Every structure is written in C-alpha cells, then in structure tokens.
C-alpha cells in the first residue's frame, strides 16, 4: 500500500517498498505555468535532502526541484523529454519526475500528509 507525502516546497512523494516516486503538486505546476523543458537526473545519482534533483523550465523561468529526502535515483521520467507539458496536465500522475531509493525512511516522518499540505497552501 503506497503512502503519499508532501513537502512545503510543493512536491509529492508516493512511497512503496522503499522507493519514492517524486513530482510537483498541482498547485506548483499552476504557479510555474506552461513547462517547456525538464532537466532530468542521471540514474544512480546520490542525493542529499535539499540537493537540486531536477530543473523545470517554464516559458519564463527555470526552477529547481529539490530532493525531499536522501536517496539514490533509480529512474527518471524520460517521457518528459519529449512532452514536458505532462507536468502541467498530470502533475500527480504521468507527470512524475523521478524515482529514488530511500536512504533513511525515518526522514518521511518530517513530511506532510495531504490534509496538512492542503492547509499549508491555504
């Protein structure tokens, strides 16, 4: 059974079997506007919480998406290379950004659940 967590930086993580699928929230994609490019990470890259994992580029600006927890990239969503607008149209589904193997599952305790995130964005 997958559990979904949220961060104050407007990312979501769906965790199942020690692997987190990470994306940005619908609120975040709305703030960014139409995406035209996603710079994806290499598989195998080790990230510490707060490192830049992905850069999403809208017509107007580039924005960093940070690793919400420590871990190692196991897969990047290659579909976004040809269709970055999936992040706009399906932020919490087909527009996921990367998957990572969690280094320390106890870090998840510091994240928000959906109700807390909804309160966070007001």
């Amino acid at each position, binding site marked *: 059974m997958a559990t979904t967590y949220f961060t104050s930086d407007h990312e979501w993580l769906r965790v199942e079997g020690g692997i987190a699928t990470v994306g940005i929230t619908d609120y975040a994609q709305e703030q960014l*506007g*139409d995406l035209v490019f996603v710079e994806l990470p290499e598989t195998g890259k080790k990230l510490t919480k707060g490192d830049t994992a992905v850069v999403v580029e809208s017509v*107007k600006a580039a924005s960093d998406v940070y690793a919400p927890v420590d871990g190692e990239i196991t897969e990047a969503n290659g579909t976004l290379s040809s269709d970055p607008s999936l992040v706009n149209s399906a932020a919490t589904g087909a527009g996921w950004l990367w998957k990572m193997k969690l280094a320390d599952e106890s870090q998840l305790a510091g994240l928000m659940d959906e109700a807390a995130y909804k309160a966070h964005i007001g």
Partner: protein
Amino acid sequence: MTGDDTRHLPLEDIHRAAGARFGAFAGWSMPLTYPAGVMKEHLHTREQAGLFDISHMKLFEVSGPEAVSLLNRACPLDAGTLEISQSKLSFFLNEAGGILDDLIVTRLGDARFMVVANAGNAVADEKHLRALAADFDAKVEPLDRVFLAIQGPEAWAALSRAGIETGSLLFMHGVEPRKNWFMSRSGYTGEDGFEIGLPEVDARDLVGKLLGDERVLWIGLAARDSLRLEAGLCLHGQDITPETDPASAALMWAIPKEIRASGAFIGADALRAAVERGPAQKRVGLKPEGRQPVRGSAALFDADGNPAGHVTSGGFGPSAGHPVAMGYVSTPLAKPGTRVFADVRGTKIPVDISSLPFTPHRYRKG
C-alpha cells in the same frame, strides 16, 4: 504595509476579475499571466488579438517653440524632419553614448510631440528631459493616462467593432483620435497593432467593448516578453543598458545618417568614436540547439572554450517552437550560423548565432 511603494494599475480591479496572476515589474504590480496561461496567450496574440495593459509606461508631451531643438539635443534624432503623425524609435544617451532609455517619439503638431518611455526609466527620463528643457523654450508634461496595447492580425478589426477606425494609420504613425487620446500603430510583439493612451473612464469603456469580442484576450507580461523576444525587440535594462551604445546594440538603423555625422545630441562624440573604432561586441539573435532554454546572464564561449559574450534575454518561443535568446558576442563571431556555447548550470549548450527576428514581423506599412 508601510514602506511598500509598489504602484498599481488604474484598471487593477478589471485584471483581478479576469483572474490575473500578478508580479512585480519596474516598481509596478503587473498582470504576469491570466488563466489561459503564457503559451495560449502568446499564440492567441499571433493568431487573433491580444490586449495588454501597459499603463506602467509613461507618456510625455513635449511642446513649445523650441520643442524640436530640445528633442534634437536629447535624442539622436532630427525631430524637425518628422512629418506630422510620424513616429520614430530613438534613445536618450549618456555622454558615453550608453543607452539611458529607448523611446518612441511621435510628432503631433508643428511644435508638439509625444514621447513614450519605459516604466523602469520614467522617473529618470522625466528628470533628464526637464533638466535639458531648462535651456529651451519648451515644456515637458507627463500625462496621466491608461495605456493599452492591442496586438495581432485581428487588432484593427476588433477596434473597428469597438467604434475606433484605424483605416489610414500606418505602422509607426500616431494620432489623437479623441480628446486626450493618443493612438499609434506600433507595438512590442512584431504583429500589426496599436497602442492607445486615454483617460481612465474612456479606457474602462473601451476595455469593456474589446473584451466583448471573442477575438480579444487579456495578455500578461510573461507573454509580452516571449512575443517581443521572438520579434527580436530589445528590453531596456537587459538587452540595452547605459553600458551599451546603439552601435554595439545593432540599433544604428534608428539614427539617421546626417545625425550620425553632424547631430549635436548628448553622447554624439562618444557614439562617433565608438562607430569609428567598431564595437567590440554586437547584439545578436541566439538559437539554442534542442529544447533547453538558455536564459539571460548565461555566459557564452567559442568552440575553443574562450569567453565569447553573454546572453541578455532568453526563454522559449511558443510560435518559433524552440528556445530563443539574444545577447552580445565578440564582433568576429556576430555572423548568423556561427556556433557558440552557453553555460547552463555547468553544461555547455550549443547555440547558433541567428538573424532576428525569430518570427517575421507583420507590420502594416502601407
């Protein structure tokens, strides 16, 4: 909130009602996007008609027996040769020939001109022009107007339906169709279109009529920027600054030949010297390879890794369908087709020098 001197558009309530997302630009709270989003807003402007609130820009009326002499001192321009209703792109230069602002000057009468200045420079421009005016029998009057732009192939038809005929007005001409109105056929998108300065009460009426036309959509600053970048038009403060002169900015076409040779405008000596020397760098179009945008301030390198210049504006061109940028490169590299490399977060992206504009201008010249 004390100390917040952000300025607000007179029509802000209309933009809020239209669902605008606001952001700060040049000291103003401006609509950046509307619910359609930057991509649709951009394409809609090229296909139909986009309505822009550009009231952050400033209109100045310059008048008096020596208005021509004042403008000829302030700008590399022969204001006396402008026909009535003719507009011209010009500049305020500093003594070093650097560009303090770019302006559109329109002749309204024998001794009356309209000067349209950029938002970020409006206060400095007014001070500059007033100081110069002290030596001439001429006065400078900032006008309190709402300033709207309507741009795109259907702009004229939408205005016509709203009761404003634009028939004989050609690109880079401006008239006063009603009391306290100024309307020019010009813009910042590369499309046919108009800029209209008018009193707020008239503006509310006109906006209501225009938005009742399904061809017309509000367009925010984000799309204004991508439209002007595709059109190869400069943004002062990014692509042209007090540190760049018209020769390096590839804008000498805006300065008449006789004025280059003998004009007595501020910065004339420095500009002549710069032309004589030849600029070390030139402004060019830049087309990044692939899909990744290359943005302002990215450093450029030649094939051997030597510094070659920098990007001043960059983003994605929704009509071009690829990233677009402009910037400055060493003069020997400033030829279309030359390949340079932009440093984007440590990766070198191949970028080809490209002729401007990226999308053809569609002005109504006659």
